[in-house]
């Protein structure tokens, strides 16, 4: 158990290191000089040189990399090339907004997909199962931003029940916060639910054909209880894997959704920074998203160890 844990932590650290080098290298090899890019072509050479010195762009790449990583790890990623404002507080604010979105979207996806997928598996030969299955196939084909636009058309423009866009921090006005959170989170959640439903269905179908489920029924458990008591835990392993992959999709989906609903999250920051050629911020945001994905993969590995005793190794 301990060995596995150490092994997983090692993999996480190695992945983080390699991906940070990749992100850094990618941004470092870009054609042109970030300082020149930031100041525009009309800037004087001396102004460019000054900016280069200010941000340490004249130092060797390795030193620049270490400086960047150090900044990220100490939650002090320095100042923007463009606005000169400190990036740290901005990242923290934006990240919080995006986490609300992604978290709520994930909860919506799970609440919809876990029971629906199970139902689809149990009824996979009945018309109701086939209809749900077809519905999920359609859901998979709808991009989150399209779902967002459709929701706005119906609930904001058509019925006027919810605000079409905007964001209010929960401490400021909890009711408005929830109203504004609902549609973007639904857009993310419904589409992810469609994908997740299909995986839940196939995981549960696999489990339904397992011998131990027949053993459970031979013990005198009714099919539903047999599935709940013996099946779901075993079906959870592949589902958890997909959940982790979906987090990456949700984080990226929120980039688009934040644009649709005009929400000041990490995605908006990323897009604005790209538009402003504020490359250091782009680099930071990309790294934060990659870090989040890798961290979740690590957590999933830990969850496996909890779910499946076979992975823990060693005899008891």
């Amino acid at each position, binding site marked *: 158990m301990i060995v596995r844990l150490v092994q997983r932590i090692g993999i996480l650290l190695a992945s983080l290191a390699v991906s940070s080098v990749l992100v850094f290298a990618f941004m470092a090899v870009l054609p042109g000089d970030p300082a020149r890019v930031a100041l525009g072509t009309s800037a004087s050479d001396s102004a460019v040189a000054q900016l280069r010195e200010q941000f340490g762009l004249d130092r060797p790449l390795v030193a620049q990399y270490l400086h960047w990583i150090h900044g990220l790890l100490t939650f002090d990623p320095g100042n923007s090339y463009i606005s000169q404002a400190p990036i740290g507080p901005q990242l923290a604010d934006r990240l919080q907004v995006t986490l609300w979105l992604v978290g709520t979207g994930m909860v919506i996806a799970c609440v919809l997909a876990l029971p629906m997928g199970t139902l689809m598996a149990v009824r996979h030969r009945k018309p109701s199962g086939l209809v749900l299955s077809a519905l999920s196939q359609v859901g998979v084909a*709808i991009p989150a931003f399209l779902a967002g636009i*459709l929701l706005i058309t119906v609930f904001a423009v058509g019925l006027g029940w919810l605000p079409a866009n905007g964001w209010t921090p929960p401490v400021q006005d909890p009711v408005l916060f929830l109203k504004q959170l609902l549609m973007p989170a639904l857009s993310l959640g419904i589409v992810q639910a469609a994908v997740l439903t299909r995986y839940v269905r196939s995981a549960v179908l696999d489990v339904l054909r397992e011998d131990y489920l027949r053993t459970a029924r031979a013990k005198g458990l009714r099919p539903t209880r047999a599935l709940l008591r013996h099946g779901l835990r075993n079906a959870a392993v592949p589902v958890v894997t997909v959940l982790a992959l979906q987090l990456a999709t949700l984080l990226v989906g929120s980039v688009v959704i934040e644009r649709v609903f005009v929400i000041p999250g990490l995605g908006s920051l990323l897009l604005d920074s790209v538009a402003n050629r504020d490359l250091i911020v782009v680099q930071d945001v990309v790294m934060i998203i990659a870090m989040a994905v890798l961290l979740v993969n690590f957590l999933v590995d830990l969850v496996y160890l909890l779910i499946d005793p076979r992975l823990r190794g060693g005899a008891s």
Partner: protein
Amino acid sequence: MSAPEREATVASAVPAGRRRRRPVTGSLLVGGLVVAIVIGMALLSFVWTPHDPTLVDPSVRLREPSPDYWFGTDKFGRDVFSQILMGSRTTLFVGFVAVGVAAVVGVPLGIVAGMAPRWFGELLMRGNDLLLAFPALLLAIMFAAVYGAGTLVAMIAIGIASIPHFARLIRGGTLQVMETEYVTAARAAGRGPFAIAVRHVLPNVTSLVIVQASVGFAIAVLAEAALSFLGFGTPPPTPSWGRMLQESQELLSIAPRLAVFPGVAIAVAVLGFNLLGDGLRDRFDPKLEDRR
């Protein structure tokens, strides 16, 4: 002795037509049809569109659908139906190049990772998994930040982000093929790894590649739409479904149909490629079929 017995009993117990020979499933039929329609639209757009999709004509702004403008016109007076037709070209082109990039890199990578010594294969897969931390859209935005937005940048970014899916799947298939007796025989006969890869592994994983290509196409269509929506995809004036959606958003209260037509086009195309992928999977490997 009796493990095969139960299999045989149950397998033959299910009527033959339903389980074994299922050459054409509903998914395959519908998916193939939809994909054929999208391809047909793209081809048609080369020879005919009702109007010039890029022609700005303020005198016909925001027309409702009519015999002259089937899907109506947008805020610049451009014909929506013509844009949808032309947009299918963009969609297919991006999908094709992205899937091509992913397959050309991912398939050999998967085969090498499957044939190489275990530790090396694992290492390659770890690196492969790392790419999963950079989904298509994120990669495309990064690329756009560095190289500027454009169709080519978008296609390559989507392609790179799709590599790990191909590599993982193909490695799995390769590992299976490598355990078969004919590969053992070929190795015993002194065939080199390259010959085995080309003669035995590649033909056997082709069906996996085709299935993944279809599914990857759907992912690429979604990513291209999202990128165009964000303004990182195909630049104007070339019509693109994603950008049509983006342009429609400010007019939702006046002309929601401007969102509906490209939205439906995207969803139908993605659905088509997904169904085609599912149908092909059923056809190639009945064991993987969608559980009867």
